[in-house]
């Protein structure tokens, strides 16, 4: 059972119900990261936009505020671009920031 650092979570890491939500999110995090990567590499930016939009809305509810915030920034960036014309390099910074946040939580997953 990994110990959760309260500073990284916006839910109460001593509360049973909150931990259940945190773990629910963590469980799917690796596959979410994979999906983000492959969608970005494939250049499917409208799909990426949808994923970012969903993360922005949902991550904070599970205790992952920083993921929500960075996803929101990526969504904003995509929103101001033409999704048909955009190149990965143009959104690289925002995309990397989101992945960095996601990756920073992987340490809580039992390997």
């Amino acid at each position: 059972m990994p110990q959760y650092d309260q500073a990284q979570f916006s839910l109460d890491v001593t509360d049973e119900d909150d931990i259940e939500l945190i773990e629910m999110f963590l469980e799917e995090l690796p596959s979410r990261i994979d999906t983000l990567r492959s969608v970005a590499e494939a250049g499917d930016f409208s799909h990426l936009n949808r994923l970012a939009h969903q993360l922005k809305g949902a991550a904070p509810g599970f205790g992952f505020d920083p993921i929500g915030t960075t996803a929101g920034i990526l969504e904003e960036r995509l929103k101001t671009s033409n999704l048909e014309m955009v190149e990965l390099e143009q959104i690289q910074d925002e995309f990397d920031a989101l992945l960095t946040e996601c990756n920073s939580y992987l340490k809580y997953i039992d390997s």
Partner: protein
Amino acid sequence: MPDPSNNQLDSRPVVLLVDDSDFVHRLLKARLKYESVQLASAYNGLEGFEFAKKNPPDLILLDIDMPVMDGFETLRCLMEEPITRNIPVIVLSGMDTTQDKVTAFDLGAIDFVSKPFELTELRARLRSSLRISSLLKMLEQKAQVDGLTGLYNRAYFDQRWIEEYERCLRHSNGLTIVMMDIDNFKSVNDSFGHPAGDAVISGVANLIQSHVRKSDIACRYGGEEFVLILPETSPEQALGLCERIRTDCEAIHWPRHPDRNITISMGITGCSDGATLQPMPWIEHADSNLYKAKESGRNRIVCDQTQGKLIGLPKAG
């Protein structure tokens, strides 16, 4: 999703969540588990609308930004459909511009919650919307019900009769209307006082209510007059039901006037396979049958088809 066969057992209000993000479904499922609600799920607007038409929930939580059919369009559909029009809808959205909020409220949403949502706030808003909607339901019901008898009132009858008439027209079903009037009612009031008169009206109403089926609509038409709408019922079938009401009525014992029994006269007009009269002439026709019943001695029924063919009771053997 709640199992419809269990609805009688579980009386908790049903909350339908319409959102394309699986995150949100899981989050709310976990977060609402201590609320006294049943959660149902739909993953896009169309699915949500179809679900709501089939099993109208008590409340809908509706996302705006969805594929297939977005939340605004879904809200529009819900408000245009009579079955779903009065279900309160709380809009959930990540696009919380003032214009979005205004659009949501103008389309008929009861409340708006921005994503990511503060869950304690969402829970409070959910409870508040459920409270308002149960009051509205109560109000709506009160506006349809006659205070003395508990039957539907005249205003409800006027509206329901048109609905049933149109349904009959669409499906070529049976439909029968019964006009009833308590015989010599004025003399009850004059001889025994108005409280006794009121007791007669509500006693007869109870008798009627105890005979009609769940699908029948019993209304107080005015003073001592009642009207029954019997959907999917031929005049022949209606006559059987009404004859039982008539004979039971004359046998009722009235404590305030044990020596004065109460009888009713009725006029019935109906069809067995589609309307041949317009709604207003149909009522007038039943009313003139009631008049004939009165003219020919009261405590009797005059029954015919909308084409005018008279129907008599089978001779008792």
